[in-house]
């Protein structure tokens, strides 16, 4: 699953993930908008709690990640939100590990962040129903992206692809469906009752510094 524990990955993968996460976090914190703080905190809390509801599938179990939703609603702040959620899950529940914090942050937040940045501007112009469909696509793709990155991290740490790929595929397919449904419903609902949620999200991006 997305919470890779200590002792599975090789050192180069850990260092690469840690460096990428640190750089992304620094960038994201510079772009953090004070008006978005409550949204970020709520989504971080939702992410933190969502991992406690896991369903066993085959030899493993899955739970919601909500990265697609985070990417659409809070953009760059997905990174700190996921980082804080993962840190607390590691310290309090022993999910994942401290050494893999960087890799896990990148794996979970990365796809959601990229999709959110790409699709959030489109979302503002859509009706709630269409926005829900687009968000479902984003949520599903974000989960699939996380699955791909987890498999990549495992294979790069010299786990055999033949052993990893079928399990990752089998566990992430239901997750993709679940994420798509939850993200779609959540965005369509937010779009209906608080359309300004998505109007505000890309604003700090447009005004922000371009690296």
């Amino acid at each position: 699953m997305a919470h890779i524990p200590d002792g599975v990955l090789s050192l180069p993968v850990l260092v690469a993930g840690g460096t990428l996460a640190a750089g992304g976090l620094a960038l994201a914190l510079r772009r953090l908008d004070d008006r978005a703080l409550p949204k970020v905190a709520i989504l971080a809390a939702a992410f933190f709690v969502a991992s406690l509801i896991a369903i066993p599938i085959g030899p493993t179990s899955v739970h919601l990640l909500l990265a697609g939703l985070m990417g659409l609603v809070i953009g760059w702040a997905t990174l700190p939100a996921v980082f804080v959620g993962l840190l607390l899950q590691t310290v309090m529940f022993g999910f994942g590990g401290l050494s893999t914090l960087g890799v896990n942050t990148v794996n979970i937040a990365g796809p959601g962040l990229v999709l959110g940045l790409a699709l959030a501007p489109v979302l503002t112009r859509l009706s709630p129903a269409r926005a829900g469909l687009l968000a479902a696509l984003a949520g599903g793709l974000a989960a699939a992206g996380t699955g791909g990155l987890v498999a990549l991290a495992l294979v790069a740490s010299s786990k055999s692809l033949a052993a990893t790929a079928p399990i990752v595929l089998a566990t992430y397919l239901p997750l993709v469906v679940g994420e798509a449904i939850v993200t779609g419903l959540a965005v369509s609902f937010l779009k209906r009752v608080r359309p300004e949620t998505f109007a505000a999200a890309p604003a700090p991006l447009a005004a922000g510094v371009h690296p």
Partner: protein
Amino acid sequence: MIRLVFALLALLAVAIPAQAHRLKLFATVEAGNVSGYAFFVGGGRAAGVRLTIRDRDGHLLHGGETDADGGFRFAPDRPIALVIAVESGDGHIAETSVDAERFGAGANPPLLAATLSTVVPEAAPAPAAESPPLDLSAAAEARIAALVEAATARAVAAQIRPLLEAHAASEGRARFNDIVGGIGMIVGLCGLAAWGFSRRRPS
């Protein structure tokens, strides 16, 4: 509103088999056999995951998969410290170790029983001939002591197994305090950030 209700119902349906998300391994020693199972904290056995049993130096002693109930069983040929690990193939890993002392007296009860059955007939004629009927030879006494020790170890192992299982299951389980504490931490961080912003931009 209806959508919200549906969303909540959907979440609830997902939450009913609520399980925390962490692979763990339970192992205990009974009568010289290591047995146990792999499970996810909060319930659910991990069936068909790769299992390896190694000694302290990393030599592979046993490799295979857990059965349909996530269980495994292994009989080492001598009392030895074991490191048991399971790996689900998608990044879940769990490891536990068993000390050589755990195999102690109960290591090979069939062997001990066999030795006793050969010892007692030998010892039996001796007390019959001499006056004290229970004057066993020192060797027989030592063997009986070992046998009693083995039987006690087996009985204790059977009694403490449920306790060990309960401990393994509760260890690492997400408690309500932890969940609320984590949410409080996030709220606090949010407040800290808001305070930082307010100091940076006094208006």
